[in-house]
């Protein structure tokens, strides 16, 4: 049976397919429903993580103040209205865990990879819809186990989100090393299974299930980003699993993979000999560094798409963007040591990691440059999605610059574990990625729910969050440079740090402001699902295939046959076209000039450059260098 007939028959079968409530909304195998499940769960976890951050920010800003609401909410963890020190560490730990894994990995990748990979590649669904469903339910189970850890006697895990041994390996070390830590490890193991199941599906779908005409160099940059992200996850999550397994063996069976020569107060000298906590750091950060790119790359892919669509211009340097994604992916595996500069490693090894860390800034800078040049002289539509995409570029630049400082092994001696690090990763990873996620939500909300979000609320959401994020994280750079360490419960016993109390108060007020901005977003999001203005099939006049599907979701995505693709995804503002967009699936006069067809000088694909640009030698040279390739 030919591919076309098979797809047609498949679509016909699904038009008559009636699903029960459970099959349609709970145990769905439809990628569109699974993407919404990931999104809602990610949002719920994000709210929990954000509330935690506000709780510990209250402690940092007003360390001696009693807050009755804290005791009301947290009970024994905030006796007398003052946060318990152990619980403070737990809040910091779970905040980090939730934000890094549950919101920015599963919530971001899980949502948009599931939504967009089949739609933008031209597939009916993922390669294995059943495995896709399993991926979500493992994620859900993982979230439940993590939330359960809040209700155990000794409290949740509290060794920082990195859970370094020996604190995490010794159940009696502190309250947060007890059953809560075991639950953390179980939750992460379940999460890794979810990530692997999802990742193999994404890779398989991108490589094996693209529609006719969709060659790799016609894929939108979102798909390239999700593809490389999935590869990173496939190669790095098993190593974290290995690290977690060794930790479980040390905790539960008494092995000594990470432990040696330990004296525990109240217990005495332990029997463990021969282990090394540095081993854990190597295994953890082997995932940990690719993990930050697993978080960032989907956001960068989304930004590419949103900027091109809303600037009404082809993305500048498509090939360079793909190669830079590839470069970031490869380099991300060989820079993990920059998280361990102060562990006593050989200085020569430190300089190798330093060099590679600085090199990884190059492909990142290529992407930023290409975003800016895409915006340059674009016919920009400042939709909320576009604002968030531009906001990502801002955070990526400001946060990325401080990465250069931290990547220097000598400077890192002073800056490691200080607020400088906190500022850096919250800007370049936290804020940038969350802005990418918001951009994606605003942009693809019509595709997910058939309605539009409210623009006015979107603008308020953007400006409040953007300003608040800078107010929260920028001052932290100065705190870090002054030596203020991270993860401390209070600084009141250290007079030198008391000068930062008012700064902490400013940060906390800004964090609360950011929290209120998210309430606006949540209202807008949930209200618009039910009462938002109904959208048409292609509200943004975009070129990519997902906008060729009907507004009402159907199983199998397209009624009838899947469209054939004739060109790349960024054919905007062509002078030979009346409209400023040219969808991929519309056959046109230029059918013979796609990938694989001979390109002749007498039949250029693109029109003449505007006179002002064609006369600009520097601009033309830069275009050649950064691979602006006609298609």
């Amino acid at each position, binding site marked *: 049976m*030919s*591919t*076309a007939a098979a797809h047609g028959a498949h679509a016909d079968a699904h038009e008559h397919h009636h699903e029960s409530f459970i099959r349609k909304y709970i145990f769905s195998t439809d990628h569109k429903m699974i993407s919404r499940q990931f999104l809602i769960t990610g949002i719920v976890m994000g709210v929990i993580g954000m509330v935690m951050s506000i709780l510990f920010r209250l402690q940092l800003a007003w360390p001696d103040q009693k807050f009755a609401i804290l005791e009301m909410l947290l009970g024994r963890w905030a006796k007398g209205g003052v946060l318990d020190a152990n619980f403070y560490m737990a809040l910091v730990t779970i905040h980090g865990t939730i934000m890094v894994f549950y919101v920015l990995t599963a919530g971001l990748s899980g949502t948009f990879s599931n939504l967009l990979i089949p739609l933008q590649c031209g597939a009916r669904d993922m*390669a*294995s819809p059943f*495995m896709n469903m399993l991926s979500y339910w493992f994620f859900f189970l993982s979230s439940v186990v993590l939330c359960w850890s809040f209700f155990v006697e000794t409290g949740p895990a509290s060794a920082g989100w990195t859970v370094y041994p020996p604190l995490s390996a010794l159940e009696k070390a502190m309250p947060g090393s007890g059953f809560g830590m075991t639950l953390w490890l179980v939750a992460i193991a379940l999460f890794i299974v979810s990530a*692997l199941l999802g*990742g*193999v*599906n994404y*890779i*398989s*779908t991108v*490589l*094996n*299930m*693209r529609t*006719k*005409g969709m*060659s*790799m160099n016609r894929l939108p940059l979102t798909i390239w980003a999700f593809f490389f992200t999935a590869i990173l996850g*496939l*190669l*790095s*999550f*098993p*190593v974290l*699993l*290995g*690290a977690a*397994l*060794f930790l479980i*063996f040390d905790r539960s*069976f*008494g*092995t*000594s*993979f990470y432990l*040696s020569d330990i004296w525990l107060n109240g217990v005495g000298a332990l*029997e463990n*000999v*021969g*282990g*090394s906590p540095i*081993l854990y750091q*190597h*295994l953890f950060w*082997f995932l940990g560094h690719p993990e930050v790119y697993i978080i960032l790359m989907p956001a960068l892919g989304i930004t590419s798409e949103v900027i091109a669509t809303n600037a009404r211009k082809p993305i500048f340097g498509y090939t360079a963007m793909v190669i830079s994604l590839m470069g970031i992916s490869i380099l991300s595996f060989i820079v993990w040591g920059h998280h361990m500069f102060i562990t006593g490693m050989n200085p020569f090894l430190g300089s190798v990691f330093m060099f590679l860390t600085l090199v990884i800034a190059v492909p990142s800078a290529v992407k930023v440059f290409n975003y800016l040049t895409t915006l340059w002289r674009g016919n920009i539509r400042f939709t909320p999605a576009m604002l968030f995409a531009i906001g990502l570029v801002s955070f990526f630049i400001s946060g990325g610059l401080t990465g250069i400082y931290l990547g220097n092994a000598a400077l890192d001696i002073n800056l490691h574990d200080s607020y400088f690090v906190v500022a850096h990763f919250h800007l370049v990873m936290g804020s940038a990625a969350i802005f990418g996620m918001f951009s994606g939500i605003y942009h693809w909300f019509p595709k997910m729910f058939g309605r539009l979000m409210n623009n006015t609320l979107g603008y308020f959401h953007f400006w409040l969050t953007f300003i608040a994020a800078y107010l929260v994280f920028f001052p932290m750079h100065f705190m870090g440079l002054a030596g203020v360490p991270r993860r401390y419960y209070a600084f009141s016993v250290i007079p030198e740090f008391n000068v930062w109390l008012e700064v902490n108060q400013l940060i906390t007020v800004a964090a609360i402001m950011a929290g209120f901005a998210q309430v606006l977003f949540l209202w807008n999001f949930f209200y618009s699902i039910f009462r938002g203005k109904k959208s048409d099939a292609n509200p943004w006049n975009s070129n990519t295939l997902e906008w060729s599907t009907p507004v009402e979701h159907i199983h199998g995505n397209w009624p009838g*046959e899947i469209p*054939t693709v004739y060109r790349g995804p960024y054919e905007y503002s062509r002078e030979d076209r009346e409209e400023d967009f040219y969808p991929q699936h519309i*056959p046109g006069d230029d*059918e*013979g*000039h*796609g*990938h*694989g*067809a001979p390109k002749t000088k007498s039949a250029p694909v693109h029109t003449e450059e505007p006179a002002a640009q064609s006369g600009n030698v520097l601009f033309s040279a830069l275009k050649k260098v950064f691979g602006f390739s006609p298609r």
Partner: protein
Amino acid sequence: MLTPMQNSESRPLKFQPKEAFRMNPREFVLWLLIVASIMLFAAFTSAYILHRKDGLANNQWIQFDLPVQFTSSLIIAALSSVFMLLSFRAAKNDEISRNRSFLAITLVLGIAFCLLQYSGWKYLTSIGLPFVPQEDMVGGISASFLYVVTVFHFLHVIGGLLLLTIALFRSFRLQVHRKDLLFIRITNTYWHFVGVLWIYLFLFLYFAR
């Protein structure tokens, strides 16, 4: 099977994009999971190397011979791969009863492999090298690593035995033949993977200890 690219009006497109890489998606998913598994064992063996280096420097690493049972299981693994290959070839040629016989032999050899591994662990425990080092036992961590590596390989073999059992059932139900080779091909690939993995792990443990 790749088909020529056609548009919806059934006339050939003027351009012919290079034919894309196509493999059955489920088979491809298996290969990806194999890659993930390789990374897990890479983590284990990297940890082993790091630990050994530090352990030897601090006199906290015991060197010991691998149990003879592991050498036997290496031979059994290689034999079972041969029979699995024969089984797959029989399926491709529609030789149903040969396919069934070879699958059964592979399954039996797989069970023998598991028993030999268990016997090897028991031997190690009996000579004072348990998974959890005993009190005052310097360098016992080296045995702990061996158990982790071999137990996780064992778990992978259990998965392979499950696939073989299902393949055998399907063969009895005449669902394994030339026109439906997907499941047996997946089983074949996976079984060779666990076999090759054991060869690698054995050689690693033998030379790196």
